[in-house]
């Protein structure tokens, strides 16, 4: 049974695209057939994070409008054969996406994949509402910071009201993914703690991705962090989150980033 999973947040810059790419890779590494779909029309970036920016010929809007067939537009990952990318258009505006067209494309993708990951644009406009419209599950990417938590709360409300599932009286299964978490700062009371965020959002936790230099390094080279450095702390956290998505019970730990001494020095500087 194929699942449509939207990766959303409301706020920009919290790690939606990074998380879509990392989890898409992790699912594919486990053997799932995965397609990652970029809904950020006009500001596409998933192609860049996936390292496929030079291979884009057709895009989601071309397929929606019937200019290209779906298999022509799908870009097969060179490293993982069961992972594909459907890029967003860079030029046309968001209104070129229609609900009927997106629904049709997702239905077609369901027939040939296990997971369809929809990378939502920031905001609550058309691109974001269409990315979540047909979702079975949702990952709400949240930074432990007030504006991100507020926007996540708003998005959770939309997932419960404006999706096809919600309108049919069914539930979209929601998971919070906390990214850019700094355990040392949270321990010092400088950052909202995991418990604070979960209590406020009242949504189950999928994983905690620590703040890490490996994430930028991975995007620099166009290789999702789970592929680029699987031993790194964010990669391990993403793999754990992915396994939870598949129903496994994995203890919630925050993989350590550095040695204790480095943390101490870093902590002193940040204080």
């Amino acid at each position, binding site marked *: 049974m194929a699942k449509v999973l939207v990766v959303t947040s409301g706020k920009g810059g919290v790690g939606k695209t990074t998380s879509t790419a990392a989890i898409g890779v992790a699912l594919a590494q486990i053997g799932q057939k995965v397609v990652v779909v970029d809904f950020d029309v006009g500001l596409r970036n998933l192609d860049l994070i996936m390292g496929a920016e030079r291979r884009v010929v057709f895009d989601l809007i071309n397929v929606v409008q019937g200019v290209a067939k779906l298999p022509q537009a799908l870009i097969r990952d060179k490293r993982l054969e069961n992972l594909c990318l459907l890029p967003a258009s860079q030029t046309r505006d968001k209104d070129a996406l229609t609900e009927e067209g997106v629904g049709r494309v997702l239905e077609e993708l369901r027939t040939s994949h296990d997971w369809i990951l929809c990378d939502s644009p920031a905001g609550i406009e058309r691109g974001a509402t269409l990315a979540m419209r047909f979702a079975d599950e949702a990952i709400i990417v949240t930074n432990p910071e007030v504006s991100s938590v*507020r926007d996540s*709360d708003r998005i959770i409300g939309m997932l419960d*009201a404006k999706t096809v599932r919600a309108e049919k009286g069914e539930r979209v299964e929601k998971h919070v993914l906390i990214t850019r978490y700094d355990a040392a700062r949270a321990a010092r009371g*400088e*950052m*909202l703690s995991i418990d604070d965020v979960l209590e*406020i959002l009242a949504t189950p936790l999928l994983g905690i991705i620590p703040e890490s230099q490996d994430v930028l390094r991975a995007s620099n080279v166009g290789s999702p962090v789970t592929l680029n450095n699987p031993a790194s702390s964010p990669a391990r956290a993403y793999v754990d989150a992915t396994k939870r998505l598949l129903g496994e019970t994995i203890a919630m730990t925050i993989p350590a980033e550095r040695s204790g001494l480095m943390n101490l020095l870093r902590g*002193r500087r940040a204080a």
Partner: protein
Amino acid sequence: MNILRLFSSRPAPAPAPPSAPIARERLQILLAHERGMRGQPDLLMLLREEILAAVSRHVTLDPDKVIVRMDRGKNVSTLEVDIELPNLPGPKLAATG
């Protein structure tokens, strides 16, 4: 800087008080309000419009001279409407600010 501080006799600056509890409380108050408002017409705008409509039945209002402030607290919120009324020539309407 940090290493130098180890050797200096000056005490390190006191650490800033934890700010996360403030963040949590601000969010709880804000979201309690926003969740209540979801799908509802904006109460603030509604009150503003109706109050102004009521006042403007009697006085000509300059929309720029009307200030509406809202302060949302945990248990009580206040709505403050500050309307500047022109001094009317007639003796009947002695409007005070």
